């Protein structure tokens, strides 16, 4: 009798273990976006040997920016690895800090071959003028920050998938 009970409990345990394993697998393979994931920082770049991209905003140029069209922004790109990079795609998104009335202006540039240790500066002409309402005033819904911080997010990517990101936040 005791043997039968043990067999039955063993069978239940084996069933539950299998079910648990499937549930864990389902959780691990599920769509993370469906459950409000914390956004992960970009994958860390390879340390030591291998391709490494370095990206930066020269701060003196950032300080000169004004909230109007025709602003010249510089981006420094450096190949910090020990392999040649055939090309680097640069994306710059200028967005208002207001999420209720998002305004995004995107700019793209491509840098040619970069030898190991080589750096270059890319100039981008950007428009930082505020979004205007139909009445000609700065568009700003009730309750929103009247002077949101401007955000400049730059991303450099190589065809091999090496990437770097920098965000500049401008005081109003």
């Amino acid at each position, binding site marked *: 009798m*005791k043997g039968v009970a043990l067999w039955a409990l063993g069978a239940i*345990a084996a069933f539950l273990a299998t079910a*648990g394993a499937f*549930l864990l697998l389902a959780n691990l393979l599920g769509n993370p976006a469906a459950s409000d994931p*914390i956004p992960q920082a*970009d994958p860390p770049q390879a340390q030591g040997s291998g391709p490494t991209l370095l990206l930066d905003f020269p701060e003196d140029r950032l300080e000169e920016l004004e909230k109007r069209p025709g602003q010249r922004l510089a981006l420094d790109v450096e190949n910090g690895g020990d392999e040649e990079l055939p090309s680097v795609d640069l994306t710059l998104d200028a967005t208002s800090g207001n999420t*209720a009335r998002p305004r995004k202006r995107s700019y793209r540039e491509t840098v040619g071959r970069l030898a190991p240790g080589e750096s270059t500066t890319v100039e981008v002409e950007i428009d930082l003028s505020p979004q205007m309402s139909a009445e000609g005033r700065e568009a700003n819904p*009730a309750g929103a*920050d009247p002077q949101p911080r401007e955000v400049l997010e730059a991303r450099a990517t190589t065809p091999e998938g090496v990437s770097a*990101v920098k965000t500049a936040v401008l005081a109003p």
Partner: protein
Amino acid sequence: MLPAAVFASLALVLTPVFAGCGLIGGAREGETIPPASVAATDPGLGPGVRPLSFGPGDKGSPRVSPSGEKVAFVLDGYVAEKPLYAQTSLPRTASDFGAGDAEWLTDEGMAILTRQDEAGAGDASTPPAPSSLFDVRPDNSSSDGSSDVARSIEKVTAVGAVPDGGAVAAVAVAPESPGEPTSSRLVLLRSTEQPASVYLRSIKGSVTGLSISPDGRRAVMAVRRDAGDGEGRFEVQTYEFSEGRASRVARLPEETEILGAPQWTRGGVHFVAGEATDSAADDRNPADYDLYRVPAGSGTPEQVRGIGEDFMAASIKVSPGGQRLAVVGRRNLGSPTNLYVLDLASDTLEAATANENMEVKTNPLDLAWSPDGNHVILVARGALSGPEVYDAPARTLSSAFYNLYEVPVTDLPVEGESGS
């Protein structure tokens, strides 16, 4: 021996099963905001402080749900909510809603007050600008935030949260003739499914700030009474729900205004007041207001001495148990704005944050307790004197923008002993 071994085996087997279902522990690794003890960076408010939101946007009016599982906040004029430690939030209203405050209802619907017109935000010389109160059903977290408003109440001047869910709104009653003084009535909203309850006995004056006592039995109000010459004087009043009547607790001197809502504590009614009106006051430089207390049975406000003579209070909120008071303010004119906790039994002040270079919002709406009384939620951002460059995408940044921070308020060092 055998049953114990069998149960132990079953427990070992069942643990991953329940964990897989999300019944034990948090979400998967990497899905939740890490505790402050393992976070890589200090946001600038001292050890143990944990960001609850990230990315651009002007956030404010944080409110933790009565279950403690969710937090709602106003983001650039619309209402968003999320699980407490999840990163991504969902809008509860359309982006142009113009929300100023949001309170949880018992069914996890929300009562949302539209933002008051800044020009008439309730100083001593002007009556509070009425707003509208909407309630939004709990299943209304659509991706575009387009909301189905369950009902609306007009001419609302103040709202207070009921401790276990629900909201009490003060509604301005139009005088029957031009010479009559203004009055107000209270309306209770418990859930989106229940009809609103109106307390018929009116309150003399306009309610500019309202909170509910921790036991839920009474409303505590800042009321502006007409003085007959176009000016107004502030009073602290209570409204006992069981008796359905208002009582005056204290009357303030002329030209003195109450900031936010008075709070019912075990040590009497506490409120922040000062001379009206410092137009230069803002989040970075709050006005020079003081913390007052009206002890039980007394009609005379007295300055709270336990916080220090030079302390400049900006906003207060009583803890769920009523024994402690969260105070946002500055120890003196030259010190940064911090969160303090006043232990009402011992009259001792404890610093909960160590502000390094953060702009802490000082509006009374921007302060909330967690239901268990272990944390206070505030809103802050890093001060910028020029452009700041970060090594991460904007959506993952906390101190670059106004974001919510969870501050632990248990086992705090007493002010003066810590050397701060």
